């Protein structure tokens, strides 16, 4: 294990020996090393954000056929630093009647939720935060904490609009959690384990090829989770000012901002690990660092795609978004889950009798799953077409004009 192949674990061992040599008990030293590792991971997360902010603004510009930030540093690389400084120096304004504790706690929650997911993502066969055997479950838990942060922010800022924004965003986040979890279950099912690292190991054939639909559902629901792209009603500029972030300013607002961007990159990282085989690549086993490289290439590829969607897609209405989730994604996810389970089970039963070559088995399995998924796609498309026709007719009907909508009593009395 030399430095080139696996620098991080090398450093980790070196540090461990250092501490032991200092005479600390193994447990304590182990704790310290783990602590340092966590610290490094956190800072790496934040530093990534700086880079991705610049990257995204550049991409926006290029897509919109303009240059984007190019004043500070070559190609505007250092543009994010003056932004950061600007935010840091902004004045802390806490609204009157705001619930102090909760008001300050909210941004911490939202950022911590995102950072916690990084603990589980494996960059390389040996480089991973903690290899929890319930890694996927951990991801779900952390996802829900994010929602909590939003509510508290919206509530504690003592402002009707922020509360309204909070409710809308929480509704969106919580409802999109369901299809995300269901989509997550499929790789777990295929990989026979809940540990993220073991999932990556199981991906001889990338899961995206086994069940493209699951990948699609996961990708879409994660987008909704982060509140970006077509689903960005959280702080839709044109409507509710900045949603739940209106009362925040200064560093607190920065925290939210960073949280959001980091979350965008995290979902692309997750997408990469779960469906694109994570650090799987030609020599990833032997050279862990190479695994890291593969991982980041895939992650940035998905991230590019996320940004692309964000730029090009128009914003969805809240009812369209919820209908899309509850009437399309969730049922599709459920059906998919059931069918893949059946296919998987039947394959395991039939496989021995087919006396295939040892190596061919995963490919046959992949082919089977792929074909099943294609069939499902065709059917859903067909259903959507018929539904589409009905939709047009309904919309076509003239609607009563100038009827004062009754104020919803349930929201705020």
């Amino acid at each position, binding site marked *: 294990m030399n430095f080139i192949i696996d620098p991080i674990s090398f450093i980790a061992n070196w540090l461990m020996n250092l501490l032991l040599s200092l005479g600390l008990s193994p*447990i304590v030293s182990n704790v310290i090393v783990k602590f340092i590792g966590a610290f490094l991971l956190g800072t790496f997360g934040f530093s990534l954000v700086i880079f991705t902010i610049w990257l995204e603004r550049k991409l926006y510009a290029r897509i919109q056929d303009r240059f984007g930030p190019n004043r500070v540093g070559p190609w505007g690389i250092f543009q994010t630093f003056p932004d950061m400084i600007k935010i840091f120096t902004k004045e802390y304004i806490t609204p009157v*009647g705001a*619930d102090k*504790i*909760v008001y300050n*706690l909210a941004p911490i929650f939202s950022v911590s939720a995102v950072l916690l997911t990084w603990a589980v993502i494996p960059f390389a066969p040996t480089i991973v935060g903690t290899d*929890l*055997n*319930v890694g996927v*479950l*951990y991801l*779900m*838990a952390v*996802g*829900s*904490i994010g*929602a*909590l942060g939003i*509510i*508290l922010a919206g*509530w*504690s800022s*003592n402002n009707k609009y922020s*509360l309204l924004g909070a409710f809308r965003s*929480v509704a969106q986040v*919580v409802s999109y*959690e369901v299809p995300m979890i269901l989509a997550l279950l499929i790789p777990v099912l295929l990989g026979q384990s*809940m540990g993220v690292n073991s999932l990556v190991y199981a991906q001889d054939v990338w899961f995206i090829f086994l069940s493209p639909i699951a990948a699609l559902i996961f990708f879409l629901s994660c987008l909704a989770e982060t509140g970006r792209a077509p689903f960005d009603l959280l702080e839709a500029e044109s409507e509710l000012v900045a949603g739940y972030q209106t009362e925040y300013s200064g560093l607190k607002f920065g925290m939210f901002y960073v949280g959001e961007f980091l979350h965008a990159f995290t979902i692309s990282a997750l997408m990469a690990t779960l469906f694109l085989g994570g650090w799987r690549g030609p020599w990833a086993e032997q050279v862990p660092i190479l695994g890291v490289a593969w991982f980041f290439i895939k992650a940035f590829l998905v991230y590019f795609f996320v940004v692309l969607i964000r730029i090009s897609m128009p914003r969805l209405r809240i009812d369209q978004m919820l209908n899309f989730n509850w009437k399309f994604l969730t049922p599709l996810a459920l059906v998919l889950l059931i069918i893949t389970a059946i296919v998987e089970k039947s394959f395991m039963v039939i496989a021995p009798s087919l006396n295939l070559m040892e190596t061919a088995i995963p490919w046959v399995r992949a082919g089977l799953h792929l074909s099943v998924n294609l069939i499902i796609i065709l059917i859903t498309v067909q259903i959507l077409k018929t539904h589409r026709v009905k939709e047009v007719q309904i919309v076509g009907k003239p609607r009563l004009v100038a009827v004062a909508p*009754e104020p*919803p*009593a*349930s929201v705020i*009395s």
Partner: protein
Amino acid sequence: MTVEQIIFLFVAAVTLIAGISVVTSRNLIHSALWLILTLSGIAVFYVLLNAGFFAVIQVVIYIGAIAILFIFAAMLTRRVMQDTGPQSNSNWWLGAVVALLFFAGITLILINWQGFATQAPMLTNTSGQLSQLGLALVSPDKYVLPFELASVLLVAGMIGAIFVAGDKKQ
């Protein structure tokens, strides 16, 4: 006093204080937050008890869903932002007395219970633990019935909640 015991005591203290503050805090939202703290404390306990799966489940279900529900409910059912007046009803001391009595009673019974001070046995194979649990939950001779009943209960709860709280206007 091993590290583990120190952690146990520390976390127990934190959870208990959070629990008491849940019960006594004046602001409903604050008590909800304290509740979240206690729940996470209990999640830590699960980790101490080598039940990692349960810790995560605790976080997902309680903190992720139930706490949020509480906060939602708190917000939906408040006339004015701040709660006013004493939060506990008149004969609170009777409640306190009963709680203490109960605590005393339970501890007494536990003390008399012979298995009270058993030490933690060594955990052998923890690897298959989770899958074993999963299998137990769906194998007919073990716990499939409660599992199915729980699912029925959840569906019923869902439908009930929607129906009861659903806005009848539209």
